[in-house]
């Protein structure tokens, strides 16, 4: 498989500023701190991590909704790391985003039809008649009655709102969709519907997903490969079946042990440290049940252990 998008050593730091006249940098939140991976055509990469690990920032930076500090993003051999705002339109058509909170991701003062149509207006896709037909098509595609297009977001249920969010993302025929926790705000019985919809659309339209979640059963269902993120870094990346069968990184082991049906839960001590001042050496070492001397001193690298199973740990 050829990579659709390839990310190399991507970094995104958010500066912390103080003072309003002579603002000075007091430090930075290392939200994304050197991340590399690729997503193949038609593949879903699941990205798992706890809140504050930088997974959302990573998603946004790839879409260039935030400016990367260093590293590169290459889409089909086109480097998009530094393209200017005015040359970005084609990239906006190739890559789209589905958001976490469906209610918040729709403009409350616009009908949902207009929200979808906005994509078509921005990219000059057809006259009004054509656009309306396309909006109807899209709504049917995501499993909604086209009559709903005249409604406002607050008149729809959470599941319906999220379907609108998906339709809006599909309007420009993208190849890549970054889905940032698209089901975590929904009820369990509705989550399954949206996940099935996303899986069907992927097959039908040949999409690739970067699927961000903190919930492992969601990831297990939707992903082809899975990346585990901790404090701005990817600590393990492997084929889904491989990862769930034999997790290597102690952090991954602990996360997987929380899945229902697993009897002996691994309980990690302490809390996620601040990304402003991450621990020395391996970032996970203060909480790691299997740490040894070297972990504190030396930062491990993301190594390929066997056939695409990457792990960042001194144990291997």
């Amino acid at each position, binding site marked *: 498989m050829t990579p659709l998008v390839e990310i190399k050593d991507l970094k995104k730091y958010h500066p912390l500023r103080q003072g309003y006249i002579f603002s000075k940098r007091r430090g930075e939140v290392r939200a994304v701190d050197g991340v590399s991976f690729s997503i193949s055509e038609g593949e879903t990469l699941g990205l798992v991590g706890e*809140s504050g690990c930088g997974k959302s920032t990573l998603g946004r930076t790839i879409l260039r909704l935030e400016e990367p500090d260093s590293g590169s993003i290459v889409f089909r051999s086109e480097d998009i790391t530094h393209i200017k705002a005015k040359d970005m339109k084609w990239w906006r058509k190739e890559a789209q985003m589905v958001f976490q909170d469906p209610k918040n991701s729709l403009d409350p003062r616009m009908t949902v039809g207009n929200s979808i149509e906005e994509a078509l207006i921005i990219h000059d896709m057809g006259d009004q008649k054509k656009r309306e037909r396309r909006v109807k098509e899209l709504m049917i595609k995501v499993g909604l009655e086209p009559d709903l297009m005249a409604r406002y977001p607050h008149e729809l249920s959470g599941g319906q709102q999220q379907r609108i969010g998906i339709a809006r993302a599909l309007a420009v025929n993208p190849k890549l969709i970054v889905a940032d926790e698209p089901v975590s705000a929904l009820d369990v019985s509705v*989550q399954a519907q949206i996940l099935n919809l996303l899986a069907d659309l992927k097959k039908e339209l040949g999409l690739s997903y970067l699927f961000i979640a903190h919930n492992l059963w969601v990831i297990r269902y939707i992903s082809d490969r899975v990346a585990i993120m901790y404090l701005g870094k990817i600590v393990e990346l492997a084929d889904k079946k491989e990862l769930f069968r034999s997790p290597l990184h102690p952090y991954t082991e602990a996360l997987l042990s929380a899945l229902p049906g697993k009897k002996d839960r691994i309980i990690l001590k302490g809390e996620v440290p601040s990304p402003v001042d991450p621990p020395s050496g391996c970032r996970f070492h203060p909480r790691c049940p299997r740490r040894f001397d070297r972990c504190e001193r030396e930062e491990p690298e993301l190594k390929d252990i066997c056939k695409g199973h990457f792990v960042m740990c001194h144990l291997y």
Partner: protein
Amino acid sequence: MDSENGDKAILSVSGLRTYFFTKNGTVKAVDDISFDLRKGEILCIVGESGSGKTVTALSLLRLIEPPGRIVEGKIMFEEKNLLDIPISEMQKIRGNRIAMIFQDPHSSLNPVLTIGEQITEAMTAHRNLAKSEAKAQTIELLRLVEIPEPERRFHEYPHQFSGGMKQRVMVAMALACEPSVLIADEPTTALDLTIQAQILDLFMELRKKFSMSIIYITHDLGVVSELADRIAVMYGGRIMEKGRRDDVLKNPLHPYTRGLIDCLLSESEKLASIPGTIPNLIDLPEGCIFHPRCISAMDICRTERPGSSKIETEHYVYCFRYGGR
């Protein structure tokens, strides 16, 4: 109070209805539910949002605020119906005999009072304690819930604590008077994965130590499978199925319970899902409220509300497929 199978129940709820009288109509948040809590057990109430599980918990302590009101029912606790006693007597039970932990530890603590004061207050409300004595006990409690440096943290404010630590403070507060019943309303939902595991672990330990009876409210079937002795599944303000953990999880009978478990635990290519959405509680469907989403609905489901049918010891289902009359 004897429960359905003759065991001693510490808390027994029957026919509880809590409605919210809003401008747009009456929300039947809890609509005729009955269950027992036995001594030393963990009862998990499982449901999605809008199922009425939180309102049930609040009703037990009579913490329902207008426009909500407990319309009818009986809550028997220590030989008394909690719905009949005056509010002053209810205040003596709250925090003292029955304590509660809430979902969001960030908003459940008063931001302008120190942690120490908030826990001490829970103690002195019910017991005559000297100030120094209350402080010593509070610090002991903080140590019990594994908060490091309790003497220092006693004087700190909630915003100086992380989410997990705040929830530990809430637990300490609930334990202040060593209650016989603890109600925990989704105590880990607002927390991160690894922190959730820590809090759950704390629960298990405390349960062993204090032999409390716990009502644990959650939407997470994974947690249920670990924690519960018995389970009650709620949907749209009603109980759909209740019984011992293994009976319900391994042999779910109600189509809703089965759907829910399939959603979460299936590993097949296509996720099982329940069609449709959660009903609007103002305009509930006639008959069984689950019938519009039920794959095996019959005619009678559309017109009549099913009663409970006893499948085996302690396993009850509210569905016409199993009698329901």
